[in-house]
């Protein structure tokens, strides 16, 4: 038993034995038993409460990732929108930590981020974000329209649009511009051009959609819009930001969603590729 518990017990016992409390009669064996039981009850309650509290602290969310990573940022933004408490554990990508056995036990695909919530371990940033948005649906901003089935269905549709239409076009551009140079390669212009064309077609559809509603799934910000933030943030630092800026409704949408406080908190750490002073 911990020292402080022992001290507490002795202190409590002292007070019960010296202070004339109505329920203690230490000059009788019954009184002694009563005070012993009282002290025991106090100690038991205190120890179990402190165990419960430390359990709760271990049960808190743990997010493994890198602050400047797009997929980690996706989850971080969601956590901030939901005002969820979490512990952030940095994974050293440059040292290849995500490909080592201890991390592979968390995500066999060797990718960040990973969320731990008690017994649950989750990978895939979109699945993690959807879990957080559902688990904390009643706090912070409602990202999934949990009280409106039809709106919720449209959020699901445009989450998939990000996943299946937007992401495949924008991510190779971001990769070629930011990551290829770190691997000692020149950005492949052919890949960039091919995907700029694909992205342009997708953004034309977005321009039309956003001319009829303020956000992708309707007139409400949702997880579908949030999913676009991190890759687009880096894309806007490339020479091709005009893809967004030349489309007035897309531009207005981008300026709106990228200025949300939850994202600003995350964007401040998204400095991949910037020269350190």
């Amino acid at each position: 038993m911990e020292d402080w518990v022992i001290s507490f017990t002795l202190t409590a016992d002292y007070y019960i034995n010296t202070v004339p409390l109505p329920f203690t009669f230490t000059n009788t064996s019954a009184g002694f038993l009563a005070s012993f039981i009282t002290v025991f009850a106090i100690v038991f309650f205190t120890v179990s409460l402190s165990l419960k509290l430390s359990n709760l602290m271990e049960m808190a969310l743990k997010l493994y990732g890198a602050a400047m990573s797009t997929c980690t940022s996706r989850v971080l933004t969601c956590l901030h929108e939901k005002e969820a408490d979490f512990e952030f554990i940095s994974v050293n990508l440059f040292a290849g930590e995500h490909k080592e056995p201890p991390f592979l036990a968390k995500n066999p695909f060797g990718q960040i981020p990973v969320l731990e919530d008690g017994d649950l371990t989750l990978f895939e940033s979109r699945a993690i974000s959807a879990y957080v948005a559902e688990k904390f649906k009643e706090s912070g901003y409602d990202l999934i329209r949990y009280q409106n089935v039809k709106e919720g269905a449209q959020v699901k549709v445009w989450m998939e649009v990000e996943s299946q239409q937007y992401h495949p076009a924008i991510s190779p551009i971001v990769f070629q511009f930011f990551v290829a140079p770190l691997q000692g390669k020149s950005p492949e212009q052919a890949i960039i051009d091919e995907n700029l064309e694909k992205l342009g077609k997708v953004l034309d559809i977005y321009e039309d959609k956003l001319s009829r509603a303020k956000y992708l799934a309707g007139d409400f910000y949702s997880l579908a819009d949030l999913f676009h933030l991190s890759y687009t943030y880096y894309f806007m630092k490339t020479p091709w930001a005009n893809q967004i800026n030349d489309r007035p409704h897309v531009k207005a949408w981008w300026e709106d969603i990228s200025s949300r406080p939850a994202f600003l908190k995350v964007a401040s750490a998204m400095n991949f590729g910037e020269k350190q002073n």
Partner: protein
Amino acid sequence: MVVKVHGSVRAACPQRVLACLLEKDVEFEIFHVDLDAGEHKRPEFLLRQPFGQIPAVEDGDLKLFESRAIIRYYAAKYVDRGPNLLGNSLEERAVVDQWLEVEAHNFNDLVKTLVFQIVILPRMGEHGDLALAQKCEQQLEKVFDIYEQHLSKSSYLAGDSFTLADLSHLPAIRYLVNDAGMGHLVSERKHVNAWWEDISNRSAWKKLMELSKY
């Protein structure tokens, strides 16, 4: 209300939706979209699905597209009917979602590219890029190795029951095994093979195969 599914019964993404509707015993009607004639790129179809892809679903006044969004919607809407494709708790649902994302991001692109190069392009009378196909095959070997390890500890991808995560793989693996001559990717792995035998013998999937008239 009969769910209207616009698409081709032999295409992977409509099959994902149809398999789900069959599992949940939801009445549907297929409205064939003639891909060879470019029907999916015509203005009338683009009103249903602005990216010009199948499937698109119409359920009363609800219009949906993106097959994985559609299956998530129907699995939740009919959670109490037929097999539970979503898991019994928020945590179980999250794991189902996780493996759906694995299918979407770590698996599907490799299969799509491979099948396009060695099945689709030749069907169109063109040469596929065999080097690219081989690269995809090698990457798929690594992905299937991870699945093999995982399925050695778990009967299905998200746990002990068949869920959307397993269902979502059915159309692509069918292409690999039946059309692309890539059956070895499955048969050479004991647990992946057992899993594939199990999920592809489900009555809903067999019913879909009959509908597709292969």
